[in-house]
């Protein structure tokens, strides 16, 4: 045996020995069937001092097994039958996870969590302290979505939604995919959240979810939670509650995106309504489309589909002070619908309708800016744009940025271009 071979064998043995004997670098061995897959975690503050936080853990259920059908039967899990979720209490989130592990016979895996739902009260406290454990867990995927449950606790939201015929995570995922047509709010990922939380005095927008009652009214948190509160009060001394929900055939609870929540200095400061959220997306150059209606008289409506938003920012300084923020927004629109019997749309009125749309969008932008000034929260990320375009001047106003922004004069210019009128012009000409 040559010397080279001996060296080769020696180092191979050392390497293998190091791997086998050193349990710290060896991955933990567990069968896939021994893993508790969790798809959504709701985070709330505890109702008493004993348990500071509450987590609602919505696990993946395997309906085909519970109903006794063949394992190979296809079908999305949780689409029918019962869904089980747990409400776990503890001093910290770490504590709740350990408690959860004690009461289930599988080891929890955070790697398949798709969404964190944050309760409204929870977001009113400093999020850096509360979300740290869950967001920085190595198992958590970086594209995990974070939503705020508007007007209610996350556990109540989950309790209501699991009573429906659709999966919570599948539904949110579907809404995200089809969001371009609505342009209401966009997903906030955990990596973005960590980025915002790491910055000092940061402000950002967090998408919200809101329950819609069967009659189409948005539910109030106090009304919707009465039953759950009752059941919770009965078991409030239990550290863990497991709940099996039998889905009724007439489950008609829906939820939808409901704009953004404004988070300033890691605390929930206020909300943007749906229209303000859409406008904020325009100002942040989000890819998407929305519609705008122009009324001519009482009954005549022209609906335009808006696409291709392009917003540019210019900054004027007076010495080292930010004097003016000029917002130039342009977009294109198509005539989607003419809900009228009269001949209101003519080719020579294109400019008129372009101006109408621009005027309307300008007002909407001014509303958003007003909210920004009111909350003193730079949720449009203007700071970043100033930093990129005027780095030296930004350094001088960095420490008093919010004051500078709030005191600056905002000039909004909106330009619209009607791109397609489809066959409306042809019809009117005839």
């Amino acid at each position, binding site marked *: 045996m040559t010397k080279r071979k001996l060296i080769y064998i020696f180092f*191979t043995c050392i*390497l*293998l020995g190091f*791997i*086998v004997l050193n349990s710290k*670098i*060896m*991955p*933990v*061995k*567990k*069968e*896939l*069937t021994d*893993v508790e*897959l969790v*798809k959504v975690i709701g985070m709330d503050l505890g109702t008493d001092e004993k348990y500071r936080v509450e987590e609602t853990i919505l696990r*993946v259920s*395997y309906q*085909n*097994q519970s109903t006794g059908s063949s*394992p*190979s039967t296809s079908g999305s*899990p949780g689409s029918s039958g019962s869904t089980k979720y747990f409400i776990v209490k503890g001093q910290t989130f770490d504590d709740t996870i350990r408690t959860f592990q004690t009461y289930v016979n599988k080891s929890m*895996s955070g*790697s*398949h969590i*798709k969404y964190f739902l944050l309760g409204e009260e929870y977001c009113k406290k400093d999020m850096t302290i509360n979300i740290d454990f869950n967001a920085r867990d190595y*198992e958590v*995927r970086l594209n995990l979505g974070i939503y705020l449950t508007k007007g209610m606790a996350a556990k109540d939201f989950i309790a209501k939604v699991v009573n429906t015929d659709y999966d919570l995570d599948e539904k949110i995922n579907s809404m995200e995919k089809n969001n371009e047509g609505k342009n209401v709010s966009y997903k906030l990922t955990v990596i973005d959240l960590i980025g915002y939380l790491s910055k000092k005095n940061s402000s950002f927008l967090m998408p919200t979810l809101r329950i819609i009652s069967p009659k189409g009214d948005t539910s109030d948190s106090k009304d919707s939670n009465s039953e759950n509160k009752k059941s919770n009060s009965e078991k409030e001394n239990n550290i863990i509650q497991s709940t099996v929900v039998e889905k009724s055939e007439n489950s008609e609870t829906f939820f939808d995106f409901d704009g953004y929540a404004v988070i300033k200095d890691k605390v929930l400061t206020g909300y943007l309504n749906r229209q303000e959220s859409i406008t904020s997306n325009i100002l942040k150059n989000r890819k998407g489309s929305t519609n705008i209606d122009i009324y001519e008289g009482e009954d005549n409506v022209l609906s335009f589909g808006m696409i291709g938003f392009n917003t540019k920012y210019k900054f004027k300084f007076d010495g080292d002070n930010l004097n003016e923020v000029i917002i130039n927004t342009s977009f294109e629109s198509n005539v989607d619908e003419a809900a009228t019997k009269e001949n209101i749309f003519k080719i020579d009125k294109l400019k008129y309708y372009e101006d109408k749309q621009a005027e309307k969008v300008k007002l909407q932008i001014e509303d958003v800016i007003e909210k920004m000034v009111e909350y003193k929260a730079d949720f449009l990320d203007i700071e970043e744009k100033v930093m990129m375009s005027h780095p030296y001047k930004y350094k001088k106003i960095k420490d008093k940025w919010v004051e500078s922004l709030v005191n600056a004069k905002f000039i909004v210019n909106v330009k619209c271009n009607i791109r397609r009128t489809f066959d409306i012009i042809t019809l009117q000409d005839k």
Partner: protein
Amino acid sequence: MLDKWRLYKKINPNNPNPPKNKSLNGEISIENIKIIFENSDDIQYREIHFSNETLILIYFQNTIDIELVDNNILRPIMQIESTNCSCLPKDLTESNENNRNSDILSILERGIIPHTSNNIRNNLNDVITDILDCCACLISTKIKDRAITFDIKKIEKRNLTEPTNENIIKGSKEAFIENIKINTSLIRNRIKSADLKIKEFKVGNVTPTSISVLYMESIVDKIVLDKVLSRIKNINIDKMLTIADVEENIVCKKYSVFPQLIYTEKSEKLISNLLEGKIGILIDGFPVAYILPAVLNMFFQTPEDYSVNYFISSALRVLRYFCTVITIILPSFFLAISTFHQEMIPTKLAISIIKSKQGEPFPVLLEVMFMLLSFEILIEASARLPKTIGQTISIVGGLIIGDAAVNANFVSPSVVVIVAITGIAGFLMPNQDFANALRVCRFSLVILSGIAGLYGVSIGIILMFYYLSTMESFGVPYFTPFTSNDYKNINVDTIFRKPMTDMKAKTKVKR
């Protein structure tokens, strides 16, 4: 002086003790030959009385062509005897130095017997070797120092048929057969160049077998050629019954599972490689040829590649490389992610796998090992049995037992799918030796994966690459041309095949 004991041992290796009271004196005499072939009932001694002396024709029955003996040996001798030809000297029995060229054997060899393949043998050893090589030997009772041997062996050969393992749709279907002379003629008929050289060797003490080394002299790598020739010369084995007797005696790393020679049944493939400067080895009795040096890239090429459109050919090669990765890594990767790294599995797939594994008692490691072993058993069983039963075994094993195992919750459907994909991907390998090596790697990686998950798989792959990069086939690195500094040659005929017009030969062969 002939070493009689050594000669006897050589002829009778299993019975080293010669018969008592009988001795060999080294003369080419009927007595000595009879001692050597004692107890061999199939040897024939045909006496021919010619003039004043007796000639004896010695041969093994059923091994020579009787018609050739009658027409080319016996008939001329008897015709001369009957016509009393004047060309014969008066006293043929004289066999001294003065009339050495005029004795009966010399006269017969020089012109009377119309057979081209005859040889004068001057010692008993050569005579015995020729008789064993199915030649007929003519000796005189009075001349003790010479004999004539005639190569009139009866060749039982089959016709040229299509290759069994290297099917081709567009192209020559000519394949080698067991006869080396016909195999050599196939090459000579196609390469009409004096540059084609064929060196012949005999290997095997008891079963001397012809080996031919073929190469194009002007383009062959002389260093590689010298290595090959010297290694073949140095082969010292008694029996040459399997093709591995040659292969394992000439390769650089005899303990390696990776093949260092590439075999082919197709003459076309050997010719193509010879014209690229490779060396071919033909062995008598085997319908295959070896091509060397063999590098990794060659195991992914098929003759069909050069018959179809270059784009299709390149796509198929990419597919083969891809399937190589699949067949090595897929089971170990599946095992690793389902046992150690569940976070890597997409949620829906994880749910699907968990569902399929409900109620199964075995861990994934055992399931995968069990299925891989079952797969190997099925392959081996269908290969050993006759073709019709082999197909039945495949159907019974694959469908009925597989389905029953899944229904009985012995294995999960996902593991069955993984192992099936792995096995089918392995069948894409054109070279069976290389496919076998991949099977060994696959099992090794599964074990490493069962110990350390993806860390184990990574370490296994690193070690495998390290080992392959240290391997050489007759001095040529195994990863050639991928490790070459000559980047232009890397993409000529490797993963992608360029159109024929773009693939220029680096050295022109002399005509």
